[in-house]
């Protein structure tokens, strides 16, 4: 993949929140939602971010787009630097706003991401008008075309979100994002609220659109099975850090990190009685407020030893293009 161009380069991205320790103290604890993440997203490829809730994957998606102000690191988008916190370089708002049309976002919950007082058509139209995607007189036609491409009926244009089911709403949300003809789309659990059969329809539609319009996706999900089929590459995140990354099939079928293995073993079996890998993961995810010392997974890892408790493993190449942060790898 190295002969292709990166669309997005994320270097040492950090997002810390300061959290008050109580009302009688000035002491602030810091919550490291995204802690030193470096990733590259290649043009026309899809990168999947997988992890449990509370591991910082959504925060990361939003920080990359600068919907949340970063605390550290830099992001370069198509050769233009969005920000470089350490060197205090931030793209000014005007430039950023014109770049917004190249970066779209599909949110998780199709119920709360559509304005109930706006027709679907108006929701899609707003962005198209703002960024002058097509001449004014063609806007309505273009929006209807986008809705149809996303598998909705023409009538959807004049309908309100409450007339739609979850799957249809999510299609509308995707149509709204894709209507800007972005180059980069962050999809934050786009199918988590949907039924299995509707999920495959929506994912297929997103893949079709990717082929037609050459999008690059950042696909955030907690389901490794879906992510493997949808993405070219996968990065597994745990408590704000990437613990494993590599080609989708490699990460899924030849996972290295015990956390990735545990995630796979947690997936429901495909047939009754089929043996699955023993789910050795213990406890639940620790709070972001007190990330364990050493390897952050050691509190739940069945293989943890003394070294894991004291020394934090680096994310290092194990095989070509497959990296993991584990002492045992």
């Amino acid at each position, binding site marked *: 993949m190295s002969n292709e161009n990166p669309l997005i380069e994320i270097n040492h991205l950090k997002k810390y929140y300061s959290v008050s320790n109580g009302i009688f103290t000035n002491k602030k604890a810091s919550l490291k939602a995204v802690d030193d993440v470096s990733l590259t997203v290649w043009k026309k490829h899809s990168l999947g971010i997988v992890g449990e809730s509370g591991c910082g994957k959504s925060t990361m998606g939003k920080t990359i787009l600068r919907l949340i102000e970063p605390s550290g690191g830099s992001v370069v988008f198509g050769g233009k630097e969005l920000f470089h916190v350490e060197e205090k370089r931030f793209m000014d708002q005007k430039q950023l706003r014109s770049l917004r049309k190249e970066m779209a976002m599909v949110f998780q919950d199709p119920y709360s991401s559509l304005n109930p007082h706006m027709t679907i058509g108006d929701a899609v139209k707003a962005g198209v008008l703002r960024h002058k995607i097509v001449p004014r007189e063609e806007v309505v036609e273009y929006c209807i075309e986008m809705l149809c491409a996303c598998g909705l009926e023409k009538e959807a244009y004049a309908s309100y979100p409450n007339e739609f089911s979850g799957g249809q709403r999510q299609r509308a949300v995707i149509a709204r994002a894709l209507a800007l003809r972005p180059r980069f789309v962050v999809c934050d659990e786009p199918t988590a609220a949907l*039924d299995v059969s509707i999920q495959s329809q929506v994912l297929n539609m997103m893949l079709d659109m990717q082929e037609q319009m050459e999008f690059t996706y950042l696909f955030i999900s907690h389901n490794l099975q879906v992510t493997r089929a949808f993405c070219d590459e996968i990065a597994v995140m745990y408590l704000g850090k990437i613990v494993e990354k590599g080609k989708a099939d490699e990460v899924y079928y030849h996972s290295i990190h015990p956390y990735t293995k545990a995630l796979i073993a947690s997936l*429901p079996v495909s047939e009754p009685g089929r043996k699955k890998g023993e789910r050795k993961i213990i406890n639940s995810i620790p709070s972001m407020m007190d990330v364990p010392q050493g390897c952050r997974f050691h509190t739940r890892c069945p293989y943890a030893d003394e070294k894991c408790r004291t020394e934090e493993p680096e994310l290092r190449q194990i095989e070509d293009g497959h990296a993991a942060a584990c002492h045992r790898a």
Partner: protein
Amino acid sequence: MGKILEVNHLTVEFQTVQGIASAVRDLSFDINEGEIIGIVGESGSGKSVTSLAVMGLLDENTARIPNGEILFRGKDLLKLSEKELCKLRGAEITMVFQEPAMALNPVMRVEKQLQEVYRIHARSRAKNCRGELTALLEELRVPDAGQVLKKYPFELSGGMKQRIMIAMAMLSKPQLMIADEPTTALDVTTQAEILELIKMMQKETGCAVILITHDLGVIAEMADRVLVMYRGQLVEQREIGEFYRGARHPYSKDLLRSRPEGFDRRFWSIPGTIPNAYTPLTGCGYCGRCRQAEERCQDTPPQLTIFPDGSQVRCHKCRGGMENEQ
């Protein structure tokens, strides 16, 4: 093994501004003591309404049950007075809801909410039940159970809240527990834990469980028998192993195929969507999306065929106990 619950010809309708919505149509099924049955179907197929009907939790102002009976140990729940129903509900029949955050009272400490069940149904003094509550939570692998009891629901994670819900449902040692999408709002890792716990509690107490979900993986892991619902009708009912080896109804086959595993870059999907509940049902409910639909499927409603092994299928193409080929 005795039948604990028998649902016969249950029909549920909702009277709304837009007309009459048929949510459940002529549904019959039963569940044996200590059995886990799974009800699968898309949203809008009537699974949740069925469970609410069993619990007697349907909104009386809009919902109507024009016919059918729900026999719990031979007693028709639909004929019981509210007072009699209250004695059963939460004691002998309990429920775990999909969204634990919505089901727990946000302004009450966990302990108080659990005590309430104790006070009302276990007929014991609430004051001296702390030990038992702690023991139950510990059994449900809640770390630091004593502390958790003192917390409010918002202080707990989704998985922890769902454990509290299960504790609440198990506290009165019920004979039937209905779990309506108990893990849909949870992560895969937490889902695996919660399913394990439900199974463990079920084994221990021997209660029957109705597990409602749209995830066939969850069913495969948990259930003894599966019911597939579509548009409020039962379309297939089968023993779990048989179902995964060779489902008969085209809808079941399509559902099985739309599981995400084993695909690359494209997923198998069922075309179209489930028609809404106002659409009148003529012929087979699935014919609009079925790949094998024929002319007769459009206008003749298929009957439920019962096979010698007790399984049931509602499809024109598998009548008379004959397997239809792929």
